[in-house]
């Protein structure tokens, strides 16, 4: 028996190269991009809808890539808000990957966009190992999933520098203290930012956008 050693090339090297290519492509077109990860039903789509309206009010042209395992519900919601959108059905796959995003970028008028949101499949675990090539990444959870969400998924929160806790208006109704999520996140990721939102009513959305580098000056919603 003998061992043959290899140079330590990442198993997902091909994915990393594709993500890097996506990053460069977006940068070349001057597009600022954000991946939105999060649990099923946490409000990712609503947050993006709000962001579309808000950023359009700032004169920015917004594109979206909507990924779901089936259907085009989110895609249609983004179109209704005036975004340029591409729909992706991952079918049985639990995450988006850089290759799929690359194809989606081919279907978007990149020369006519300033901002791109990529909404991943609702899943807090699988997408984390598959970088897409966006500039920023946020993770969205909501109080209705319970105040132990951060503790239950510590690795993803340890590596996410911007977290949104949505539906805080329902916190009392579901008996959840959002501050427990805030405290857990601070312990796991002392330098991360966490924002409490009620995306449906727009509360907290401007703060999220400001932390993503989009300060909104328009006072009209």
């Amino acid at each position, binding site marked *: *028996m*003998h*061992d*043959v*050693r*290899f140079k*330590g*090339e*990442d*198993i*997902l*090297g*091909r*994915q990393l190269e594709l993500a890097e290519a996506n990053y460069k492509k977006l940068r070349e077109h001057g597009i600022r991009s954000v991946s939105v990860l999060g649990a099923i039903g946490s409000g990712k789509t609503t947050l993006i809808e709000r962001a579309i309206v808000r950023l359009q009010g700032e004169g920015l042209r917004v594109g979206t890539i909507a990924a779901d395992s089936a259907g085009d519900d989110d895609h249609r919601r983004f179109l209704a808000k005036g975004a340029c959108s591409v729909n992706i059905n991952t079918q049985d*796959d*639990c*995450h988006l*990957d850089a290759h799929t995003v690359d194809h989606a970028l081919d279907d978007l008028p990149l020369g006519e966009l300033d901002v791109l949101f990529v909404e991943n499949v609702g899943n807090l*675990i*699988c*997408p*984390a*190992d*598959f970088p897409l090539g966006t500039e920023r990444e946020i993770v969205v959870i909501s109080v209705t999933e319970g105040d132990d969400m951060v*503790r239950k998924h*510590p*690795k*993803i929160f*340890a*590596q996410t520098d911007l977290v949104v806790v949505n539906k805080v208006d329902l916190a009392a109704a579901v008996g959840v203290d959002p501050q427990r999520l805030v405290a857990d996140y601070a*312990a*796991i*990721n*002392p*330098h991360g930012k966490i924002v409490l939102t009620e995306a449906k009513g727009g509360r907290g959305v401007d703060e999220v956008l400001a932390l993503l580098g989009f300060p909104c000056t328009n006072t009209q919603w």
Partner: protein
Amino acid sequence: MHEYAVVDELITSLLPRLETIPGEVSAVFVRKGELRILSDRALENAFELLSRGTRLESARLVVESVAAVVGCAACSYEGASTYYGDEGGHFAIPVLACPRCGAAVSVVCGRELYVDRVAIKDDVPPSGGVQ
């Protein structure tokens, strides 16, 4: 679930690298940074299934963990991170803050995922070697 996609990439990229290496592959050793969100058991199961019909069919996958190393730009610390865990000891994950000065750190080690080596069964024991 996503472990299948990872193992699929692993096998696809490893097979061509083995073309010049004779002998039966008995084990594939993967080094996985402790910040990666991948289940060892799911990786092993995926490998067993996806290697069928390939040269890796009789090999087993061995996942070796790599501890996190963090680097601090503020105070030049480079070394082990501190860990955060629950009271019951169910998990312990690296905290991405400098253990010395508390500043934000970069990850030097802990996110890697690569094939480190393969074990090959020899038809003839190497001369002078002890098996």
